[in-house]
């Protein structure tokens, strides 16, 4: 019996993992979370798991520790540099080269692969290497000393990676390939030819169709390679990178089923022929195939860990082997059936020899479905094409428009929404799929209102309205119908155009704007949008009389309407820092007015269930206790979440709380096209989750790193790194400009992420405008922000001090009482709205 036991007294299940590469490591990370499992990892490499995919970075200046993966969970025992020599299935134990015998309940083989070296005489000579481990790279680097010429044998993906490494060592680099073209697995002949031209332009000599016979001592260089056609090549070092083979020798020796050409056979649970033994990653053979990419390996790790955890539903069914990468600086992408091998398939090809772009798509017999693609020199369409293939999206009438340059608006409409499958759920409230919306458009719905009318999409929480609009526009464009980007039927302008009109013409009111540039009375779309523009431009107090009828009820009553018509109140708690006295004050107010109390995700406290007439009473008490409005009701800056930072945390490098409070106080109340969330983390452990925010700030040893355009919510998006190593002033200046540029140019209800994705040029363009001042806007943006910051006032303070503004806070115009028809029930010590069934 094993010595360790689970703390509940159950014996631990002993899991032994053979191989400490990326896939094995991923498995350990996942499996460590399973209760009652004790993990031992045995890896023959002398170091802990590292990022082999970015191995070439080692030659570009990265150190071994840069490549290191996060340490394995502390509950796992990792024995690096200890090789498993045999598996004894009968007694369920492995033996190692250190004479250890380790018993297992479950064994996981993640042994990976080894580089294939062709049977060439002289391949064992000094300065002949393979390209797989950090030790290999160290050996190559050592051979590089005093060398002038290097040869890579193998013109595939890994071979070109190795060639890149040799050029980084400043060697005259040759690539020798047996096949007639480069990257024959991923590219067709045309793509391979284009790639070859581009690589040769970079100074790498490419020799294809070369069969190396032997390596002999050289005259000018260390070695001479002799080829079957009589040619020869002198070189100081040789790197073999001619493919990989699965490491299946342990499995073979203990009688597990293996493939004819190698690989440990597994089923869809990643189990081998012995149910107690799993195999994952490049050593595993599923359905006759080896999956030599990290993503399918990770998928297998996930499946094996799920099965181990008792989830029998998790299965692996193969993986798409499409890849996109940069080789020697050349963008290369390969999708699906790149070689047009499917029966009945045909291809479209676009070649631009001037700027060196090669694009090819392979379509099925009917021309309706995409089967594969090759991209060399320009992989911008990779994501869209891949999604089109994976989701079997219908192709446009003329599929060649997918790869032809779009000069006059032709081709497939841009935008991520096009890549979503028809089955993708767009509106989660009413379960409306993309297909249903597309069908509605096909049936003649040409406005958001019409789509809402026939599909109910975005009539629930409304969070999907921007996505529905994007989809609608894309569909209309695909059908050749002119897109109406008007804000609504009252204004033949976009929000951005209206923003400029307001600014340029100094327009101060909705009535003036609609008289000059619109028609009709306005509606619930344009009135709040224009109010937001006016507020962002002039920062008038939002309750001033001409604004009153223009606003959503939340802005009107400065609180958040809930489903039963009552409101919730969220006082500002800058940075999430709150004194005990203030906390007590919140509690006392909530108790007095019987408000349901909940801590929000933004580190504040939400008080629910207030009627209109109660709002000023509650706020008077909150203001007396030192609170300000939290603007939770507005399309405005909400919260700046923070971790506790260097003040208390042993890992913190900067004062994240102080910075969060400074940021929150600077931008509080700022009106924007969409709500804005911020966060500040005090170190790269990122406890404040800043990378899920519109503006995220992370402290590093050299200053603040700024991330922008992330969001949580329905379609989470990681923020993009925007600038690094900033001091406080530089950080604030960049945020000023970023926010003001967003407010100036975004559409109504457009989040920062969607806004940036729709900017031509995306993140780079944004950097050019905001960091490099390419439009000469920076001074204006900063001045506008300074104006807004300088005119801030707490809307609730202004309201409770003004009898005129207080007049509207009545539940009934003809009674001082509240609405006693509201029905609540008590649950877990607080009240909540009654369900319809409870109310009856």
């Amino acid at each position, binding site marked *: 019996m094993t010595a360790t036991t689970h703390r509940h007294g159950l014996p631990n299940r002993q899991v032994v993992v053979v191989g400490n590469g990326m896939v094995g490591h991923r498995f350990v990370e996942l499996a460590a979370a399973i209760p009652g499992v004790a993990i031992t990892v045995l890896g023959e490499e002398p170091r802990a798991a590292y990022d082999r995919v970015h191995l070439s970075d080692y030659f570009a200046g990265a150190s071994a520790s840069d490549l290191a993966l996060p340490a394995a969970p502390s509950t796992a025992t990792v024995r690096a540099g200890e090789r498993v020599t045999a598996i004894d299935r009968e007694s369920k134990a492995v033996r190692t080269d250190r004479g250890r015998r380790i018993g297992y309940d479950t064994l996981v083989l993640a042994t990976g692969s080894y580089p294939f070296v062709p049977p060439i005489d002289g391949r064992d000579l000094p300065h002949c290497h393979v390209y797989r481990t950090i030790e290999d790279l160290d050996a190559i680097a050592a051979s590089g000393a005093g060398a002038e010429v290097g040869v890579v044998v193998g013109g595939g993906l890994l071979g070109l990676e190795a060639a890149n490494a040799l050029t980084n060592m400043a060697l005259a680099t040759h690539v020798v390939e047996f096949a007639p073209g480069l990257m024959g697995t991923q590219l067709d002949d045309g793509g391979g030819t284009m790639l070859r031209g581009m690589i040769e332009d970079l100074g790498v000599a490419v020799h294809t169709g070369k069969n190396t016979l032997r390596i002999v001592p050289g005259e000018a260089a260390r070695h001479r390679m002799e080829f079957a056609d009589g040619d020869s090549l002198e070189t100081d070092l040789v790197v073999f990178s001619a493919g990989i083979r699965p490491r299946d020798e342990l499995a073979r020796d203990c009688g597990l089923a293996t493939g004819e050409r190698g690989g440990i056979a597994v089923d869809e649970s990643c189990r081998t022929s012995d149910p107690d033994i799993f195999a994952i990653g490049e050593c595993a053979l599923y359905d006759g195939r080896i999956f030599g990419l990290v993503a399918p390996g990770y998928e297998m790790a996930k499946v094996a860990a799920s099965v181990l955890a008792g989830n029998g539903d998790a299965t692996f069914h193969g993986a798409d082997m499409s890849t996109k990468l940069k080789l020697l600086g050349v963008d290369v992408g390969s999708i699906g059936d790149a070689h047009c091998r499917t029966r009945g398939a045909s291809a479209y090809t676009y070649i631009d020899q001037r700027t060196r772009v090669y694009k090819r798509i392979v379509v099925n017999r009917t021309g309706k479905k995409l089967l594969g693609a090759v991209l060399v020199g320009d992989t911008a369409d990779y994501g869209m094409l891949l999604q089109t293939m994976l989701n079997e999206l219908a192709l446009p009438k003329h599929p060649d428009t997918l790869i032809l340059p779009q000069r006059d608006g032709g081709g497939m409409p841009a935008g991520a929404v096009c890549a979503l499958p028809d089955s993708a759920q767009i509106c989660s409230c009413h379960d409306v799929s993309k297909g249903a919306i597309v069908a509605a458009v096909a049936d003649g719905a040409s406005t958001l*209102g019409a789509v809402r009318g026939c599909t109910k999409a975005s009539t629930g929480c409304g969070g999907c309205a921007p996505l529905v609009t994007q989809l609608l526009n894309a569909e209309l464009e695909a059908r050749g119908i002119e897109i109406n980007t008007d804000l609504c039927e009252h204004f033949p302008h976009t929000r951005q155009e209206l923003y400029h009109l307001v600014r340029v013409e100094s327009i101060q009111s909705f009535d003036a704007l609609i008289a000059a540039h619109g028609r009709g009375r306005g509606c619930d779309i344009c009135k709040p949008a224009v109010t937001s523009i006016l507020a962002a431009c002039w920062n008038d107090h939002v309750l001033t009389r001409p604004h009153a009828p223009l606003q959503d*009820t939340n802005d009107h009553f400065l609180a958040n309407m809930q489903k039963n018509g009552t409101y919730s109140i969220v006082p500002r708690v800058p940075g999430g820092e709150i004194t005990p006295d203030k906390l007590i004050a919140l509690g006392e107010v909530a108790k007095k007015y019987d408000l349901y109390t909940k801590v929000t995700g933004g580190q504040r406290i939400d008080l629910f269930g207030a009627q209109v007439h109660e709002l000023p009473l509650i706020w008077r008490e909150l203001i007396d206790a030192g609170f300000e409005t939290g603007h939770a009701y507005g399309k405005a800056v909400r919260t700046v979440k923070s971790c506790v930072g260097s003040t208390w945390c042993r890992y913190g490098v900067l004062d994240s709380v102080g910075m969060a409070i400074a940021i929150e106080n600077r931008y509080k109340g700022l009106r924007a096209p969409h709500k804005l969330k911020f966060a500040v983390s005090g170190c790269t452990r990122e406890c404040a989750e800043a990378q899920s925010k519109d503006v995220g700030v992370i402290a590093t040893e050299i200053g603040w790193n700024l991330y922008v355009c992330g969001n949580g919510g329905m379609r989470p998006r990681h923020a993009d790194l925007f600038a690094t190593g900033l001091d406080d002033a530089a950080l604030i200046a960049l945020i000023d400009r970023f926010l003001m540029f967003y407010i100036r140019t975004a559409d109504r209800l457009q989040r920062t992420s969607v806004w940036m994705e729709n900017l031509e040029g995306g993140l780079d363009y944004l950097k050019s405008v905001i960091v490099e001042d390419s439009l000469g806007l920076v001074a204006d943006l900063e001045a506008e922000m300074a104006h807004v910051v300088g005119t801030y006032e707490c809307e609730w303070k202004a309201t409770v001090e003004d009898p005129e503004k207080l007049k509207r806070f009545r539940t009934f115009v003809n009674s001082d009482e509240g*609405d006693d028809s509201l029905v609540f029930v008590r649950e877990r010590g607080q009240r909540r709205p009654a369900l319809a069934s409870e109310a009856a």
Partner: protein
Amino acid sequence: MPAMYSAAWTTVCDLDALLPDVGVRALVGDTQVAVFRLSGPDGVFAIDAFDPFSGAPVLSRGIVGDVKGQLVVASPIYKQHFNLHTGQCLEDEAVAIRTFPVRVVDGHVQVRQPSCVYPMTSPSSA
């Protein structure tokens, strides 16, 4: 038999108390009514305060405007539009809310009680 139709009007407020295009909620008998005074010459409207989609008495707190030539208020909860003249929902032709007669007398806004519009009978007594 009592008169089923009497001219019982309830004064809810002064016209001056109504901001143009900003609704208020009023109690007319036991019924919660949303009252709007539109800017311009269109006058005063009274409709049911209850939004049939959310079941909450919120329509006085919607934004008023015009959509396709119809005067409407938008529910602040799920954004459906209701015609202020007829109560018809623009997004769902099967749904309409009640509208109530409203008038301005000597500067007072008056709404006629809904009990005067419908016979005071219940299915059991019919």
